[in-house]
């Protein structure tokens, strides 16, 4: 539930992260700003290469350097800029105040250490508890994430768990220090659909138990967003294209890219008809359009000004902002898209 009256727990401003490719620099995150309020779930959606994962990694300064570097902006956690902290200070935030779940549960656990030790490790690092007490806490959290017989399984190794179980262990590992923010980087992408639902339910359950916890959920799966998120941030070409509360976005998407994403969800009612796609490919990160709308190369509604000037993020409805010239003018992009698509299709 959004708590606008409360100060945001995480305030990201103008975040810029780039990678060295050869002797050029690819800007993977270009001026991303957003707020995260206590207790809300913010979804970050986008295609591969849109910069959503790098945004998540940049928050905890986990971008591998080199080749990556965070070039500008600020990430304020409870008023402290994480990007300005020293390495030992950042370490105190990682795991303890901001937890992280990774995409690949198969490889995110150390194969040579028993899982109990790995979960307890975080408690030992941050709270200085002795091993025995840390293991007790690990049992508590492993039970909470639904590992049956957790005490017995403390000494088991990651290879003895299934993918879904490993992701549960990862969630226990991320939550064991009771962080205020949980960043989940595509936590369900590598899992079976049935397991996906279980993991999402689990995240929701965890949030119900500790309603202050804010979650940043990174995904490319709109169904996951619809199910879990309070607010959604759509990214394309390293920039935020649309931010809106989930209901508002699903009811009335404005950005042609968002419309394209929704349009490409398979619909059983239209079985047999070709699936709508967004024409073209995501441009290579080094060839992103400059001084123009990032999406104009693939946009069916693109006009001259889309090629010559870059739109700003404009609030078009309460708490609903879009980076599109047309939507900013108040035009009904959705209807125009539908018309353009109908014309394109014979």
């Amino acid at each position, binding site marked *: 539930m959004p708590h606008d009256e409360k100060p945001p727990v995480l305030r990201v401003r103008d975040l810029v992260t780039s990678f060295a490719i050869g002797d050029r620099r690819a800007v993977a995150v270009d001026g991303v700003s957003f707020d995260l309020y206590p207790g809300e779930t913010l979804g970050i959606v986008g295609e591969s290469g849109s910069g959503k994962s790098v945004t998540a990694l940049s928050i*905890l300064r*986990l971008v*591998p350097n*080199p080749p990556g570097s965070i070039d500008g902006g600020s990430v304020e956690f409870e008023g402290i800029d994480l990007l300005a902290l020293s390495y030992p200070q950042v*370490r*105190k*935030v*990682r*795991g*303890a105040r901001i*937890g*992280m779940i*990774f995409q*690949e549960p198969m*490889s*995110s*656990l*150390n*194969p*040579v*250490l*028993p899982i109990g030790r790995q979960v307890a*490790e*975080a408690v030992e*690092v*941050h709270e200085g508890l002795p091993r025995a007490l840390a293991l007790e806490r690990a049992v508590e959290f492993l039970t909470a994430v639904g590992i049956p017989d957790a005490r017995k*399984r403390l*000494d*088991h*190794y990651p*290879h*003895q768990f299934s993918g879904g179980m490993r992701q549960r262990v*990862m969630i226990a*590992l*991320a939550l064991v*220090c009771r962080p205020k923010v949980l960043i989940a980087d595509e936590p369900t992408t590598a899992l079976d659909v049935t397991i996906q639902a279980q993991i999402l339910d689990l995240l929701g359950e965890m949030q119900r138990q500790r309603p202050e916890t804010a979650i940043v959920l990174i995904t490319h799966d709109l169904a996951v967003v619809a199910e879990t998120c309070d607010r959604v941030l759509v990214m394309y070409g390293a920039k935020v294209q649309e931010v809106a509360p989930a209901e508002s976005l699903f009811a009335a998407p404005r950005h042609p890219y968002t419309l394209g994403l929704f349009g490409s969800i398979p619909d059983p009612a239209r079985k047999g008809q070709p699936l709508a796609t967004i024409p073209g490919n995501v441009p290579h990160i080094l060839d992103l359009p400059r001084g123009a709308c990032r999406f104009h190369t693939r946009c069916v509604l693109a006009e001259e000004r889309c090629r010559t000037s870059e739109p700003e993020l404009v609030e078009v409805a309460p708490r609903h902002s879009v980076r599109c010239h047309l939507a900013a003018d108040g035009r009904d992009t959705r209807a125009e898209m539908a018309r353009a698509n109908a014309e394109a299709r014979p």
Partner: protein
Amino acid sequence: MTRSDEAPLSILQRRWRKFKTLKRGWYSFNLLVWSFVLSFFLPLAVGEKAIVARYEGRLVFPVLADFPLGPTLFPAHGGYLDAREFGFENRGLVDWRAFQEREFFAQRGNWALLPPHPYGPIESLLDDAGLRDSRPPHAPSAQHWCGTDDRGRDVFARLVYGYRTSMLFGLSVVLLSYTIGTAFGALSGFLGRRFDLFGQRFVEIWSSLPFLYTVIIVASIVRPNLLLLVVVLALFSWMGINYYVRGEFLREKSRDYVAAAISIGESRRAIMFREILPNALTPIVSYAPFALVGAISSLVSLDFLGFGLRAPTPSWGELVNQGLSNIYEWHLVAFPLAALFVTLLLVVFVGEAVREAFDPKPYSRLR
């Protein structure tokens, strides 16, 4: 696959179990380990000092003098024993073989229990009964199974004591050089950037220094003892494992579990040694036996060339060198080389089994 209700085994525990099933390596391993452990009690089996002796009601344990701390802990029974207190005319060390012989015939209730092979490794036997009339080196005989060397010392005793020296030397070199190499490689691979760039250039320059000349120079300045030789050899042999460990760390540090460890706020040291190192053990453990082979061979070569351990120290290389100057005395070459061959063979068997145990494929296609 392991069932989840079975006792969980770490990957190293599973490899250890696999290693135990490889009989040739497992027996070689046991033979080497136990013989090395037992070699620290060698004075009880091979040596010129009596284990227990009784003279005029006094019970002494002369063999304690050959153990570290023995003389200091038991000064009355195992320290320096003056021969005059044991019925000899001259001052000096007690000749326990002569003592035993004399008291056996005298029947005065005095006795001495000598080791089964009552000849020491650095004791010249030129005055001994059977050898007095001929010149050393003596050919093998019933008393001296491997003959004597050119100073009339028992070759068998020198061989078994040389085994202890060689193994001690080899293991110390491997331990020290692998510690240096692993630490340096780990830092290089983990830190990357400038440390890696300049560190690896340093390694390349360092590897191009000729080891032998350095040892010769060192040996001409100070007389090398075991510790100094270990340090010098380790300083010149850590580069190989450095490359492997660096590669392992370069690979492992980009794994997701490392990112996960960073994201829960672990320190860099914990990530290097607790998270990554156990995953980078494969080359360390599988090359160690071969490094041991190399270290033992190096000691033998250095001793052979005369730049090795200080003169009376029992050593295989020095025996082979004697064989070179006494070209017709086959036993001076054959026995030490056989000892070297068998030892290295056993170590290689261990190495082979370790490699096999670390092989992720349970069945090899080439069989």
